[in-house]
């Protein structure tokens, strides 16, 4: 800052001094704008990556940018990428494009970013503090593996029951759900591709279900398998995709729809292959 003041003092003429002063202020603001832009992009990225709705991504980015005094910001977000342009005082400033893979859903992080944007609007954060807070949010841990495995079992059992299984079926589904998530967590740690993870996972869980059923547990194999694989089925993605299409986000809707089809196909490949194998080799 010392340099800036020196410059101003050393300027000889009044007119030029004003001019120069303006440019310097512009520079300082512009420097800040870089940070603001990074902050805005990072917020959008975290939201999209963790499963926020498309319109929320754009809205939050605009809210944060405006809270820091940027007058014009344009966001175009699709399911797997963000395009954002910031205009400063009528001049072109910059554009960023970010590719965001969608694999995880972590609604805790979405909630945290939402909360942060609200507090930024209230003026509680400087840009640096906000950036730090964002990094903290991006690293909010996942639930413990034990918890995830247990609740996958609970979910499988409850869904098995809701979808028409008997109490015995849902108990078997509970066990299958546990086994499924043990595999899913194993696959996640080794970063299996999504399709492979889901295909092998559903084959594995079908195998467990068949074994348990053959041993005499449960009433209907169909209901057990349905309950067991429900954690993998992309029901939410299907509904989201249709919502996106209604919203006019045709591209996002299509991306999710294709994803739904892909995941559904890999599940049924896994299940069918395992059932066929069992038929051929065992019975």
């Amino acid at each position, binding site marked *: 800052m010392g340099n800036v003041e020196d410059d101003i003092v050393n300027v000889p003429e009044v007119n030029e001094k004003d001019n120069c002063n303006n440019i310097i202020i512009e520079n300082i603001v512009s420097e800040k704008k870089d940070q603001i832009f990074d902050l805005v992009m990072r917020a959008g990225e975290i939201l999209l990556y963790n*499963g*926020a*709705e498309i319109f*929320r991504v754009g809205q939050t980015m605009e809210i944060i940018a405006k809270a820091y005094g940027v007058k014009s910001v344009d966001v175009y977000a699709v399911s797997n990428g963000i395009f954002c342009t910031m205009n400063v005082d009528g001049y072109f400033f910059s554009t960023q494009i970010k590719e965001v893979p969608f694999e995880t*859903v*972590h*609604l*805790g*992080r*979405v*909630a945290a970013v*939402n*909360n942060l944007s*609200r507090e930024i609007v209230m003026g509680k954060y400087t840009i640096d503090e906000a950036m730090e807070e964002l990094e903290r949010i991006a690293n*909010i841990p*996942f*639930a413990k593996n034990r*918890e*995830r495995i247990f*609740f*996958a079992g*609970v*979910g499988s*059992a*409850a*869904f098995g*029951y*809701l*979808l028409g299984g008997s109490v015995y079926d849902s108990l078997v589904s509970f066990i299958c759900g546990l086994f499924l998530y043990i595999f899913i967590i194993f696959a996640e740690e080794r970063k299996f591709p999504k399709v492979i993870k889901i295909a092998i996972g559903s084959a594995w869980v079908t195998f467990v279900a068949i074994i348990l059923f053959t041993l005499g547990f449960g009433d209907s194999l169909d209901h057990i398998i*349905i309950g067991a*694989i*429900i*954690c993998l*089925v*992309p*029901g*939410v993605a*299907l*509904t989201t995709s*249709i*919502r996106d299409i*209604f*919203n006019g986000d045709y591209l996002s809707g299509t991306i999710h729809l294709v994803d*739904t089809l892909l995941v*559904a*196909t890999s*599940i*049924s*490949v896994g*299940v*069918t292959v395992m059932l066929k194998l069992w038929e051929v080799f065992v019975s």
Partner: protein
Amino acid sequence: MFRILIQMIMAFLATLAFAVLFHVPKKEFFYCGITGAIGWFFYLLVRDYINSIILASFVASIVITVVSRFFAVNRKLPVTIFLISGILPLVPGAGIYYTAYYAFAHETTLAVAKGIEAFSIALAIAFGIMLIFFIPQKVFLWGSKWGKK
């Protein structure tokens, strides 16, 4: 009546389990569960009395969206948190699975029937959600601390 109660408890558990898998903040588990249970109650009601799964999904998704928007405003959180978890019991997961399953088993007729059913349910749910999203935020502020300010 007893059957409906059991079903609602199961829907509560299912929703809660998925709230955990989606890493919803711990404090909200209970509210997510409640959203799912209320939605499932209306689903059962319509399904049993009018005997249409699609209409039942539509009505239930309306109820769930209203409830989750109410929770969202009152607890100052994005509506997705309650909506995604709450809508899960309705979502045509089994339908999608059966569609793909029959398609692989060369049962084309069944596959198409199941596919269209799953798609209609998804459409109905999406319509229900959209309908409630047209209502302005102010309505849901009514009675909350935030609204009085």
